[in-house]
């Protein structure tokens, strides 16, 4: 996926001016957060579960090598193969290699953000293998040559009309605005693709070390057909997805569904444990797990380590007022919203993604709903610190903050500055006591007035009162009790 993160400001402006997108985002804001809140309310022990989830993940991260090796041992024992991939290139090559050995012409795909991260579709296509997305949202996006704007609801930026138009155009069918009819249309087209595919590629929500299993959770069942029908099943996933036991996995499934969609459980929870065994009725002949690192192991022992706890539920973006205003595409790469604003700078570099950790009010809503208590605002601030250290912040802004800090460190000078500012801003406010425009192209007064100061600083008035009275009182306060 092309990196458009440096263009965040323009993209977000366009997003704000796009009525279709704004309508879609309105649906999101009124959907997932409400459902999550209801699901959490129905489960009194949810907070305990969150703490336990955090602790298990911390334990895994501290012993990552152990659990990954245990996972590999058990996958191999079950007759499967683990392919270690340091970076995107390694992962792409490993997948293409398996596809070519299987003489694959088409591959079906379950939804996988990691496959977006490594640009898998483009790579397979350019090497003569046709990928077919089977998640409904991803399928719509593939037809539109579009990309996901959300990690679990990839086509959340679209409305029914958009889907209707593209289906009619690509399938040659009459326009319909009946969602059930559209779904049926997709189902019929995809059914043939499932049967024809030589290889099925899915992601994994979790990798279970004790059994060597991977699990995917979906609400459509497309993942099951992707992983059981073709001769070869490839799982593309990352090293941070490993959990010790099935018991632990169950805990995360309970957290995941409630945090993501407000369901108590996702509809389809499908475990894959090796290729088809002798007496199995169906299943793939080969089972491969491509385990991608792509910089994640470097986060261990740094200020960003806690990010590895993420279970990709999307609660942070569903509740983020910035994501809710501009949508996922504005972020300009694979992972949007608060989790993306922490992860993306690690994956593509802070030089290209500086806007992401800056475009946050640090309102803390994301952290408050994160099922594994990731301190997302704190880590966004750490990226701002990296930016500051590398002198990447815009010069004007840096100068402004530097000047302000110079005064804030010197109380006497600061008093003078506050006095002068209060005085001049009050003058500018005039009789209306509101400032409608400030010099230069000011972001504040472009959209709102600046209420003018009352006049005179608190510190000056306090001092004056102290010198004239024994008990302090506000000069305007006529009804002091």
């Amino acid at each position: 996926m092309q990196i458009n993160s440096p263009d965040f400001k323009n993209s977000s402006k366009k997003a704000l001016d796009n009525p279709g997108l704004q309508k879609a985002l309105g649906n999101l804001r009124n959907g997932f957060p409400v459902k999550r809140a209801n699901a959490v309310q129905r489960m009194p022990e949810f907070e305990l579960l969150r703490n336990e989830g955090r602790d298990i993940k911390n334990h895994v991260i501290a012993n990552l090598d152990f659990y990954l090796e245990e996972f590999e041992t058990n996958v191999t024992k079950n007759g499967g193969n683990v392919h270690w991939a340091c970076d995107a290139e390694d992962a792409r090559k490993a997948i293409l290699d398996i596809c070519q050995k299987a003489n694959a012409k088409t591959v079906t795909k379950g939804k996988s953000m990691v496959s977006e991260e490594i640009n898998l579709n483009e790579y397979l296509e350019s090497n003569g293998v046709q990928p077919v997305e089977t998640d409904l949202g991803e399928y719509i996006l593939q037809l539109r040559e579009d990309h996901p704007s959300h990690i679990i609801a990839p086509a959340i930026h679209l409305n029914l009309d958009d889907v209707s138009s593209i289906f009619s155009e690509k399938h040659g069918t009459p326009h319909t605005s009946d969602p059930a009819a559209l779904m049926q249309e997709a189902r019929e087209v995809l059914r043939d693709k499932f049967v024809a595919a030589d290889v099925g590629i899915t992601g994994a929500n979790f990798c279970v070390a004790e059994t060597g299993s991977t699990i995917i959770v979906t609400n459509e069942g497309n993942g099951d057909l992707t992983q059981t029908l073709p001769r070869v099943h490839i799982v593309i996933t990352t090293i941070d997805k490993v959990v010790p036991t099935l018991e632990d996995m169950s805990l995360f499934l309970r957290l995941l569904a409630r945090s993501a969609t407000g369901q108590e459980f996702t509809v389809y929870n499908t475990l894959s444990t090796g290729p088809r065994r002798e007496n199995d009725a169906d299943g793939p002949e080969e089972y491969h797990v491509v385990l991608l690192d792509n910089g994640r192991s470097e986060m261990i022992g740094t200020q960003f380590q806690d990010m590895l706890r993420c279970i990709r539920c999307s609660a942070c973006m569903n509740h983020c007022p910035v994501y809710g205003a501009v949508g996922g595409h504005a972020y300009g790469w694979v992972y949007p919203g608060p989790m993306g604003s922490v992860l993306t700078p690690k994956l593509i570099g802070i030089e290209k993604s500086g806007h992401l950790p800056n475009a946050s009010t640090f309102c803390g809503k994301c952290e408050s709903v994160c099922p594994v208590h990731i301190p997302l605002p704190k880590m966004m601030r750490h990226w701002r610190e990296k930016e500051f250290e590398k002198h990447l912040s815009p010069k004007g802004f840096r100068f402004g903050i530097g000047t302000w800090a110079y005064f804030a460190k010197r109380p006497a000078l600061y008093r003078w500055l506050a006095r002068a500012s209060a005085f001049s801003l009050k003058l500018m406010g005039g009789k209306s006591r509101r400032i409608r425009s400030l010099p230069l192209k000011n972001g504040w007064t472009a959209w709102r007035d600046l209420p003018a100061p009352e006049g005179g600083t608190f510190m000056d008035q306090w001092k004056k009162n102290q010198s004239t009275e024994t008990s302090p009182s506000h000069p305007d306060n006529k009804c002091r009790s």
Partner: protein
Amino acid sequence: MTLTNPPHRVGLFVTCLVDMFRPSIGFATVKLLEQAGCIVEVPDTQTCCGQPSFNSGDRSSTAEIAKNVIDAFDGFEYIVGPSGSCIGMLRQYPELFSDNDPYKARAETLATRAYEITSFLTDILSFDQIIADYQGSITYHDSCAGLRELGVKNQPRQLLGKIDNLDIKEMNEAETCCGFGGTFCIKYPDISNRMVSNKSSNAEDTGAKTLLGGDLGCLLNMAGKLKREGSTIEVRHVVEVLANMTQAPAIGEAQYDLANEL
């Protein structure tokens, strides 16, 4: 007040915005603290909590500013301010210093003694003798840092509930950020505008006469938007109502009698 215990000695953390934009919030805070039996002092070397530097990634300037605050408030039993955001910042000071820095322990002490005003009155002093007169309905915006870092949610409502004839009309998404975010509103004005527009329409929908909150940054943002839109909702800091100091014009309002203005 209990007569047996000596009064609490409280240092007022004025906050830079209150100092410059709306001193009456500072005086209202002092009045409430005094009504609750505290002795209030205002250290004159205080400037700002350092949040603009902290959130811009400038840790070393933030640490310098933090040292100034720590020195200024040395020896106070409590540090109280009319802002969840600034008090939340004071509570983060310990992470600015390494373990062998003498300021580390002092920052930790400061963090445990720093309180937002409504939380201090209710949670620490169990004070509820509000003597105020206010007619009409209000709606309350829960500012983010106060709400999520300090757990300020019921405290202001509990205190407002002591005022006869004051009716609280809760708005939708009261806990959603107003889009101020310190430097955010200057760096990303368009996104900030969308957020504050949502807030102003949620406030309008309640039909309340007044919008209250506990952080002047958010209040300036919301008042600025409401006034630009021509709304008649008046915006005030919650302490102005609690201290019965609503004679002064609301935030961004002209004097009632323009002839008296200079």
